[in-house]
């Protein structure tokens, strides 16, 4: 019974680390600033119609339409769990190819994969890599699945504070 509580605590801490990592990298590389492809523009306008923020809607649309730092974080933690540090490098190569197929420059995906590899290799004695996999799923659930209106308002506030958008 005690192990379950400890593992849930580890999962929540790993989820918080993943959330901070991918939101900061995606915002720095200009996802809320403009829609990269035509489909992201449509999703941003639909999110604005239900009362959300336009720039937060562009952020969510860009995540759907091309693999960005969120995909880099999830796949790099998967390959760290299965292969070790070398898996992070293979992930960076494959995510770059996928980004170029979706007509995206590909800065956010590769740099997100490399930073989560560094963080996992630093924290390996305390939190095992398989907790990062479940934590990333919880982190993406709070943005894409729970409540679109409040999530887009929060993302718009972060983008305004980091001087991207508006």
């Amino acid at each position: 019974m005690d192990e379950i509580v400890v593992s849930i605590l580890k999962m929540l801490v790993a989820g918080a680390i993943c959330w901070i990592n991918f939101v900061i990298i995606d915002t720095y590389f200009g996802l809320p600033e403009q829609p990269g492809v035509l489909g992201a523009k449509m999703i941003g306008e639909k999110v604005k119609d239900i009362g959300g923020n336009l720039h937060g809607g562009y952020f969510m649309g860009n995540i759907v339409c091309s693999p960005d730092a969120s995909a880099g974080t999830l796949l790099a933690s998967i390959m760290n769990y299965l292969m070790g540090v070398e898996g992070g490098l293979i992930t960076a190569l494959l995510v770059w190819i996928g980004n170029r197929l979706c007509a995206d420059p590909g800065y956010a995906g590769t740099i997100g994969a490399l930073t989560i590899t560094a963080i996992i290799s630093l924290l390996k004695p305390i939190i095992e890599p398989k907790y990062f996999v479940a934590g990333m799923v919880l982190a993406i659930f709070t943005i894409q699945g729970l409540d679109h209106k409040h999530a887009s308002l929060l993302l718009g506030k972060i983008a305004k504070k980091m001087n991207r958008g508006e």
Partner: protein
Amino acid sequence: MDILEIVIGAVALLMTLRIFLERSRARKLLYLCCLSFCISALIALYVKSPMGGITAIVYFITSTLSSNAIAYTIEQTKHIE
């Protein structure tokens, strides 16, 4: 059954029900993206070998390509009608 798999499975089940019951076409794509994250994590936790990791990466990137094409078509057809 591990506790991690149970948590990811609960999230995936909730996403499946919300895709089925949602009215708007654009917001179905957001839920579909979250479901794709969940299945990719479950594949890696089920097959514990490097080949399972390669399968998860290839599955996730091609799923993103598919939803990109659907979103592009929704924008185009709105312009036509």
